[in-house]
């Protein structure tokens, strides 16, 4: 675990430096997305990696954040920051319910439950025309100003999302090194053994899911403001949920930097392919998704810890006496 902070510092420093050097709006946009998807993958990692509660329904939180910001902004003219806060609170509430289920359901039952939640909200959001404009989605108005998150300058967005990313990174780091982190690791490894040592496993799992939910919702709210449009079929989709998990699994589930690396790879590939093939055959763009699918299968089979630990192990010379 020690020594992992150096690469992270490098990663974030690079991101901080980029807007100074790069002017191209397209590249900056790519950077914002890398940091955003990295943040949300890291948020997923809090529940899926550190607490061991793999969910394929995290889009429910993302969507709650996105819709809160969008609805509060369009209907009542409230600042998206308030929308973010409201979204986070709603997400925590749903997180508590899912957390409760995580203590009653194991394995595939829990995964299916998380999927069900996101699909229920998808249907509600896409059908409730009166409130959410139904399947048309919501266009987020652009009102210039920081309080309204109406920012045209991509560089400002980079720093804004970078702040979010560093925040989520630090939350993960806390989970690695703190008392709660050790306890969660124990719960991950063997819940009953952890209970016998006085670890309040059930409470911790619920708390981890709630924190993950709030962070994911925050990402959703910011994303809505950045992209400017909220489509229920996208923000509550299973595909999106899988994407969050993909970043973390690919990069290093249960490591603080892993999700950012994984999301960076995924987003870069996607952006490149979109740019290259977007116009011609939109079908060809699907190739990157085939690559994800295959990559996911390959990673969990050959390097289940993820790329960052795998690379880390190859980088360092194996120390004497520590077998893996």
């Amino acid at each position: 675990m020690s020594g992992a902070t150096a690469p992270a510092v490098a990663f974030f420093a690079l991101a901080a430096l980029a807007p100074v050097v790069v002017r191209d709006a397209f590249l900056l946009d790519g950077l914002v997305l890398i940091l955003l998807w990295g943040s949300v993958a890291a948020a997923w990692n809090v529940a899926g990696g550190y607490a061991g509660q793999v969910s394929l329904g995290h889009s429910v939180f993302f969507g709650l954040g996105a819709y809160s910001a969008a609805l509060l902004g369009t209907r009542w003219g409230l600042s998206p920051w308030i929308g973010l806060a409201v979204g986070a609170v709603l997400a925590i509430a749903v997180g508590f319910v899912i957390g409760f289920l995580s203590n009653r359901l194991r394995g595939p039952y829990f995964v299916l439950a998380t999927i069900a939640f996101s699909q229920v909200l998808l249907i509600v959001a896409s059908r409730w025309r009166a409130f959410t404009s139904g399947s048309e989605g919501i266009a987020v108005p652009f009102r210039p100003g920081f309080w309204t998150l109406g920012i045209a300058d991509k560089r400002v967005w980079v720093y804004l999302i970078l702040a979010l990313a560093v925040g989520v990174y630090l939350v993960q780091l806390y989970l690695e090194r703190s008392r709660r982190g050790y306890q969660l690791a124990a719960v991950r490894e063997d819940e009953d053994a952890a209970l016998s040592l006085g670890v309040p496993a059930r409470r911790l799992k619920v708390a981890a899911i709630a924190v993950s939910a709030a962070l994911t919702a925050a990402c959703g709210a910011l994303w809505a403001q950045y992209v400017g449009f909220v489509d229920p079929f996208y923000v509550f989709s299973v595909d999106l949920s899988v994407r969050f998990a993909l970043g973390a699994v690919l990069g290093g589930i249960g490591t603080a930097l892993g999700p950012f690396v994984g999301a960076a790879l995924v987003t870069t590939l996607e952006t490149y392919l979109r740019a290259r093939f977007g116009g011609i055959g939109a079908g060809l763009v699907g190739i990157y998704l085939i690559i994800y699918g295959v990559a996911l299968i390959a990673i969990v089979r050959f390097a289940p810890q993820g790329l960052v630990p795998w690379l880390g192990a190859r980088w360092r010379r194996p120390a004497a006496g520590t077998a893996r």
Partner: protein
Amino acid sequence: MAGRAVAPARGGHRAVSLLSVAGVTKRFGGITANREIAFDVAAGELVGVIGPNGSGKSTLFEVISGFYHPDEGEVRLDGHRLTGLSPDRVCRLGVARTFQKLRPFAGLTVVDNIMVGALTRTRDVRHARERARALLERVGLGDKAEAHAGTLSTGQRKRLELARALATEPRVLLLDEVTGGVDQRTIPGLVQLVRELHAGGLTLIVIEHNMRVITAVAQRIVALYLGEKIADGPPDAVTRDRRVVEAYLGQAYAAPAPAP
């Protein structure tokens, strides 16, 4: 056996009872794993629990430690009701246990394993690490601090599990088959460790199959058979008790030679 300040209690009537098991009954469908089990453990006692497979020893431990809730009866620690509490609450109140099928946190290092236990008593990670290292030395695993728990031998895992449970600063420690599955050479070391813990004032309840070990360290033995308590007294008396001999030891059993 020097250093023991508390006189052994017979049935727990005279000495102050630290842990009391009263009328504990646990059923699983048609099987009654524990039937009206009752005994007291005085502070500082080392009580052995013996019985053939299926007699309900492990179930009893699960009940005491809070993993199972009994259908009837209760368990009290120093007057506080333990029954109905979650296992982590029971541990925080002062009852720790080891598992018969060892359960190390394989992906964590040895010192991290013990820290999990230590962190139940302290919020400070550094302090917990110090305590963990001290306990490592205590159980003889000092040089294995940074090894991954999954790489340890069975004997080493037993010590790890012991150290981990001790890190929670228990008032009563439940040991489930501490000598099970280890080779003959390792046993004396483990037994010595248990003796030292007891000498230090720790209250222990020990499930054990190895008769030489248990008769040597226990002040009192509770014998279970088919879910019921059939004997409760000093080792010599219990091993000669007719019911125990018939149920568990076989007809032609003679008292064992003293343990090394």
